[in-house]
């Protein structure tokens, strides 16, 4: 018995969400009096996971898995869970995790709860709290199957340093041709930009910016802060910004530490998408904008005056504090 955690890498290094997932798995393992086994696919250096509590790291190394493949990855994770006798499998809320989690659940006949916000309320019965209604509420659900699958919510648990032995062990799942009936033929990813999924800070703008030609100052702020850029639904619908930046109920959820909303009025669907962000700042010229009710800090004023000033001051601040 152990807690199995899937750890994602990028460019040969574990992603921050992988370290967070291991921290979380360690928390569950402590509740259940067991150990943590991590599984990585063509991943980073196993010792990086030990510092967050991994006792063992199963390393899958297979050139056929260089591109993500949900069916094959799910098969690998399910086989590892069986080999380890894992009763809990921890995944995250990354696009890849959410793609494979339901497949792992069926392979293991396990109940799966996504968007989990904290350690289980209790281990027996196994109850976890998760967000529902697009972050407008929380639910506590009991998973009644023998094996349980948890999809840890974005930025929900944080990094917790622990010490595990992190012993690396090669693991070769048996994969069949059926695992390779979907094949990635090309990947289109901006490598120099922070993604909304990984960002600690998100700078977002709406219709108040009047046109796509005015996004230079938003991108500048994102550069200064090392932030991702995002936008409201009308802005993506009008084609001012790519769909991938649309944040809200039908777009992407944001769970960053800081969310800065510029010229966004704060429709209920938008607020639902950003509810899980920890600190929200609003800059809007309309003091009646609903976003002010949902924000922690605000400035009432014209974005075209305030944003350039803020950028200048942030540059100076960063120069003095780095």
């Amino acid at each position, binding site marked *: 018995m152990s807690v199995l955690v899937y750890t994602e890498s990028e460019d040969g290094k574990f992603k921050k969400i992988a370290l967070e997932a291991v921290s979380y798995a360690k928390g569950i393992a402590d509740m259940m009096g067991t150990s943590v086994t991590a599984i990585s696919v063509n991943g980073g250096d196993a010792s990086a996971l030990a510092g967050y509590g991994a006792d063992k790291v199963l390393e899958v190394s297979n050139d056929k898995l260089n591109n993500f493949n949900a069916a094959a990855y799910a098969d690998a994770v399910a086989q590892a869970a069986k080999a380890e006798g894992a009763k809990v499998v921890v995944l995250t809320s990354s696009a890849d995790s959410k793609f494979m989690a339901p497949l792992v659940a069926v392979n293991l006949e396990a109940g799966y709860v996504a968007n989990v916000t904290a350690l289980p309320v209790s281990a027996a019965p196994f109850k976890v709290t998760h967000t529902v209604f697009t972050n407008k509420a929380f639910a506590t659900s009991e998973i009644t199957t023998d094996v349980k699958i948890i999809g840890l919510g974005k930025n929900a648990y944080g990094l917790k340093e622990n010490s595990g032995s992190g012993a690396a062990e090669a693991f070769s799942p048996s994969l069949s041709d059926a695992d390779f009936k979907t094949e990635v033929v090309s990947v289109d990813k*901006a490598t120099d930009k922070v993604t909304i999924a990984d960002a600690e800070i998100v700078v977002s703008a709406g219709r108040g910016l009047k046109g796509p030609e005015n996004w230079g100052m938003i991108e500048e702020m994102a550069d200064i802060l090392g932030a991702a850029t995002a936008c409201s639904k009308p802005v993506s619908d009008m084609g001012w910004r790519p769909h991938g930046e649309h944040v809200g109920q039908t777009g992407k959820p944001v769970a960053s530490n800081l969310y800065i909303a510029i010229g966004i009025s704060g429709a209920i669907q938008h607020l639902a998408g950003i509810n899980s962000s920890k600190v929200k700042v609003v800059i809007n010229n309309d003091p009646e904008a609903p976003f002010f009710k949902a924000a922690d800090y605000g400035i009432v004023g014209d974005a075209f005056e305030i944003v350039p000033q803020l950028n200048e001051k942030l540059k100076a601040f960063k120069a003095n504090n780095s």
Partner: protein
Amino acid sequence: MKILVCISHVPDTTSKINFTDGDTKFDTNGVQFVINPNDEFGLTRAMWFKEKQGASVHVVNVGSAETEPTLRKALAIGADEAIRVNTPATDGYSVAKQLAAVVKDGGYDLVIGGRESIDYNGGMVPGMLAQLLDANFVNTCISLEVEGTNATAIREIDGGKETIKTSLPLVVGGQKGLVEESDLRIPNMRGIMQARSKPLHVKEAVDASAETTTVSFEKPAAKGAVKLVDNVDDLINLLHNEAKVI
């Protein structure tokens, strides 16, 4: 091509979320229900397949009788037939098992669901369905083309997208991008009239127990009032010293 579109019956995106019965049930009082937005993009994409390449389009919901107006709306948009599996939708796994029985009975080539429903956000039904059927699966699908039995899909990934080649039978978890917001169809009078006489089959549920049970709901704690500042220096100071986020 036989297409099945899975339709979740969900509260309108502007609904106030409240709970009753000691915070154990969603309060449907005064709530308007709609086709789940992610499913509606898929339904519209299915209509394009029908119009451009020829296909039959069926829609399905797992739920009790109160979801029928939502299925009728899908018929008014243009689906040919609707199926309601007569059992309340409990957890994602049991819904996927009900849908798997419908797909096996109907022999569908392509099943389009939404990436997630906007009520429970589990995002698991399409993937579980695919795995139960041994069908191929593409999640967060923003473009889909089918020729013969070959399919090309574009999937949204964190920070970009990837192009995937696969084949039928296929299940996709769709979202905006399959079609654009402006492509969505509002049922016209003719569609609404026709929908009344289109078949809506009520199918008895198969035996499928739930594997997760929601025991209680809770609303987020009320948040404090916004702190308004009138200059950027104060804002930077608060973000650095009070909120400690920069």
